[in-house]
């Protein structure tokens, strides 16, 4: 099944010499702003998402002071309703979307550190958008994460400064999702 022993020669792009002449430098230095586009493409992909304006607490139907027990039982109750295995045949697609949102809310709020982050952002009145998390390589890199912790902290301070100077107003308008994504990617 696996393609063991099949080396892929020349696939290392470091050795690839581009044959095209690079265009002018001014083009290159312009950074891409995720905010203007992120929500846009998401709209194309996540058509018909209804819960954009709901907080994770609203999604789970619990109060903001809810305990971990409350979160867990609310999640299990909603899973019984929205999980595609038990939802009415005609509404599977709609309920599946809903289930993914509930799952997201549960995953964020059941993790103490992520809940603190989320609560902090909510207290600051930041618009709460769904699809908050970017779990790039999340579970596999625990060890390197720890090792690189000081480095990432330092880098986040640095890039924090940079971000503030670069796009002062953008940061304020940024959705909670975009901010979370950014923070996660810097790790």
């Amino acid at each position, binding site marked *: 099944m696996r393609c063991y022993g099949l080396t892929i020669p020349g696939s290392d792009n470091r050795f690839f010499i581009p044959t095209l002449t690079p265009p002018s430098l001014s083009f290159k230095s312009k950074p*891409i702003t995720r905010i203007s*586009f992120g929500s846009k493409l998401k709209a194309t*992909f996540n058509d018909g998402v209804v819960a954009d304006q709901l907080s994770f607490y609203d999604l789970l139907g619990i109060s903001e002071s809810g305990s971990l027990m409350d979160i867990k039982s609310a999640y299990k109750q909603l899973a019984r309703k929205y999980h595609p295995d038990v939802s009415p045949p005609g509404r599977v697609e709609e309920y599946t979307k809903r289930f993914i949102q509930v799952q997201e809310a549960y995953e964020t709020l059941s993790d103490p550190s992520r809940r603190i982050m989320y609560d902090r952002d909510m207290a600051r009145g930041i618009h709460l958008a769904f699809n908050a998390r970017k779990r790039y390589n999340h579970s596999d890199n625990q060890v390197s994460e720890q090792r690189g912790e000081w480095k990432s902290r330092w880098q986040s301070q640095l890039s924090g400064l940079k971000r503030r100077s670069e796009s002062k107003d953008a940061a304020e308008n940024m959705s909670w999702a975009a901010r979370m994504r950014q923070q996660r990617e810097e790790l």
Partner: protein
Amino acid sequence: MGEPAYTVASDSETTGEEKTLPLPEIAIGIDIGTSQCSVAVWNGSQVELLKNKRNQKLMKSFVTFKDESPSGGVTSQFSHEHEMLSGDTIFNMKRLIGRVDTDPVVHASKNLPFLVQTLDIGVRPFIAALVNNVWRSTTPEEVLAMFLVELRLMTESHLKRPIRNVVLTVPVSFSRFQLTRLERACAMAGLHVLRLMPEPTAVALLYGQQQQKASQETMGSGSEKIALIFNMGAGYCDVAVTATAGGVSQIKALAGNTIGGEDLLQNMMRHLIPDSENIFKRHGVEEIKSMALLRVATQDAIHQLSTQTSVQVDVDLGDGVKICKVVDRAEFEEVNKEVFEKCESLIIQCLHDAKVDVEDVNDVIVVGGCSYIPRVKNLVSKICKVTEVYKGINPLEGAVCGAAMEGAVASGIIDPFGNLDLLTIQATPLAIGIRADGNKFVPVIPRNTTMPARKDLLFTTIHDNQTEALILVYEGEGKKAEENHLLGYFKIMGIPTAPKGVPEINVCMDIDAANVLRVLAGVVMPGSRTPAVPVMEVRMPMVDDGHGWCAEALNRTYGATMDLVTLKKA
């Protein structure tokens, strides 16, 4: 058996979309194991295991090709051991299905008493049975289909109704490509796969039901219970961590590997005859007989070592090769040290992925044929720090019972006593991602993501004015792309010319309620509000056999000209 052994379905029929059945037919549960298999069904009030004519609940998974009329372990008059001697009996198909001839698991199957030949070029291996001194080639799908037909006929005569829908248990480490092969085998046997359940999750469902029942009887609060399930059969080893409350079982993490009783057996055979591979290389009638005799004798010895501390192995393999030796349990454990170490690391990994401390585990469930081996039971209880494992589940019947229960639930059967008021929230056993950043595997949906799921990740071009990008979709745990299973590939065309790193290529992966994987790719240029090219949506897996060389061929032709890198934001 006079009737045709199996019906051949066209390739396009394998996934079968026909879901609207007029009558609620109860899907049966099938546990098709590497070494043995079983069938169970919800009989209206509980799960019942079905027996064949020889009164067996567990039937050996093998097919014997004789005079062009194959017969399998369900109906066969002879024992598996007897049938193995002449080279016309094929087994261990679950280990070989959907694998190419560069796979080490295929290589390890070469000393089976039939033909497994490899050319190491990334195509399917040549598998054949010796019938009247002629090699009759076959495929794992075909053998499994023959076997499934026998199971179907047996079940139909029991239940006196036609059977169409099944819930099948599968190893955690099976790739989506292997799953399609299994579905194909079912289609050949006239069966429609309603659900494929990783084996330990079927056990988890059964556990969830038992817990719910217990809490109802005691009027308990039904607080959350966490269980670790360790399942080791002949071909595969799986671990799952489940959290269950009120009939809802949430799979927290899954881990699986291709290690099992077969490895223990092979290591032991090598221990008894170190030069066995060379001796049996010729694959003549005599060698096959010797191989089979050695296999049977070793298997018996391992079985006996589960209950006694030493065993006398006494076997004449012919051609002057005789074994007369006492093997003790310590020796067996030493020879298989590596296998047991792999089991340990699998459990540790699963607990880690589930973010569960050993102390929080309420029950430890050990199932599968290897659960009778004292060393296996010990290693699980040691890591989980328990003195006793969970007693409520039969090690050999748990998976099939869970599958039958899921079959009833998924068929929409309602039990007045609430015994089917169950839900299993599944997780992805393997990460799914694409090749990017050189030759790396970049997961878009990490493993142990709750299903259904939808995730996306941004990539960008690596060359200036790169107008095309190749999306190679892989599944697995390897860091390098080629260490994973290739599921398919497609090209994004018409990327607007721009310096490298500017176009944003969004790769989104979606696993829907029916566990169907779709990959979507779109291109957006900075400042633009709409996708630059129409979004491509492709259903995976799309590769057929021979996908081993296909990645290499693509690379030879295109090199890195259509590569991508992950988009990092400052």
